[in-house]
């Protein structure tokens, strides 16, 4: 996973759990599970550092409450999953999949999102450079072309969800995709840059005027994080 915030957390835990051959023994010992607990990553900036684009109150609630709830729930359901695996309870394992997807997705998405953002003093809003910049020009004509397409995609989300600039791992090309709720960017696509379109991401400041939020967030986008994820 390309997010440094996520290292040692959920995905590795899931991988470890999945690749443990004697899962029964491992689960009973409790080691695998305890070692792999997801934790809330620290933000690399202060809650108020993204103002005026995103208020400090939104950032604090979003990070310390919403993201934290995804972490807590993911750990809870991961533990249940490990127990179900140890007990070879396949019905329970299957029943847990949507919960792992939702809370695990919430943890992954928010961890990537915090890295996607930066105050102006730390490079927020500075246009991308290098290979990614070239690819954006090729695919979207210009950075403004990308922003426009991404904002249209964000505005078209019906309900809660995310819009992502992704890279197709098969072709290397970049594109914009929207995902419902907390569905994470996995499989064929690699997440480069995500924008949270859940109402909790903007409502205290922008209320129903979500287009203003989508317009303002570009002032605090950390393109360096996207450059690092781009292969």
């Amino acid at each position, binding site marked *: 996973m390309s997010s440094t915030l996520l290292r040692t957390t959920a995905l590795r835990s899931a991988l470890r759990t999945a690749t443990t051959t004697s899962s029964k023994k491992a689960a009973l010992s409790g080691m695998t599970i305890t070692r792999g607990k997801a934790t809330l990553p620290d933000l690399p900036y202060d809650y108020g550092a993204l103002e005026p684009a995103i208020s400090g109150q939104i950032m604090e609630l979003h990070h310390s409450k919403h993201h934290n709830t995804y972490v807590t729930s993911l750990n809870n359901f991961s533990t249940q999953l490990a127990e179900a695996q140890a007990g070879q309870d396949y019905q329970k394992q299957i029943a847990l999949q949507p919960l792992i997807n939702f809370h695990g997705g919430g943890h992954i998405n928010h961890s990537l999102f915090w890295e996607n953002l930066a105050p102006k003093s730390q490079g927020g809003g500075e246009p991308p450079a290098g290979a990614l910049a070239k690819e954006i020009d090729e695919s979207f004509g210009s950075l403004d072309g990308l922003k426009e397409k991404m904002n249209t995609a964000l505005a078209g989300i*019906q309900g809660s969800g995310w819009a992502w600039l992704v890279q197709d791992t098969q072709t290397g090309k970049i594109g914009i995709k929207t995902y419902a709720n907390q569905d994470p960017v996995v499989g064929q696509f690699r997440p480069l840059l995500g924008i949270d379109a859940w109402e*909790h991401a903007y*409502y205290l400041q922008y*209320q129903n005027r979500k287009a203003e939020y989508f317009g303002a967030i570009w002032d605090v986008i950390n393109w360096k994080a996207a450059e690092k994820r781009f292969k």
Partner: protein
Amino acid sequence: MAYKPHTYSLPPLGYEYNALEPHISAQIMELHHSKHHNTYITSLNAALSNLATASAAGDVPGQIALQPLIKFHGGGHINHSLFWQNLAPASSAEAKPSSAPKLTEAIKQTWGDEAAFREAFKAALLGIQGSGWGWLVKVEGATKDDRLTIVTTKDQDPIVGKGEVPIFGVDMWEHAYYLQYLNGKAAYVDNIWNIINWKTAEERYLGKQGDAFKVLKASM
């Protein structure tokens, strides 16, 4: 000649924006009704107008492409119209479960008692992943008796299945509670019981699906 679709307009609330305080703030109610609900109506009218144009032009792909928009914005209009009607000021007689004798009896028969029903309803609402609604629904029995069930729907999907009568719904989009309850949606769900309009719920329970949608016909 092109078919001209009906144009929908925002139905007035049956109470003031502050009438549901302290359970739902006036600020939430005003934004929710005058902005969110109104946007669904504006977008629904636009989609229906485009549908009429596509239909007149024999543009089948165009008509199909409009279906998700009609479902979303039409659902938003239906859901909110029903929602405003199934709320009432806490001090009113309508907000007492005793205003729904037949329905509360059916609830007891289905869930054992009212507390168990509320608990089940709350668990369903809090289990919604993302935006959506929770509804108490009457399913009309073709051969058996009618039955009650709790249904959650995603985004703005409406309750419009055959024989399904929405009795009351709770909006679980974050815009419905966030300005007041922030991330504390469980408290929003707990408090909403104080402002359920049981009189409306009883009428819907005793009526048919078409009766529940009267408000929509009136706002054309």
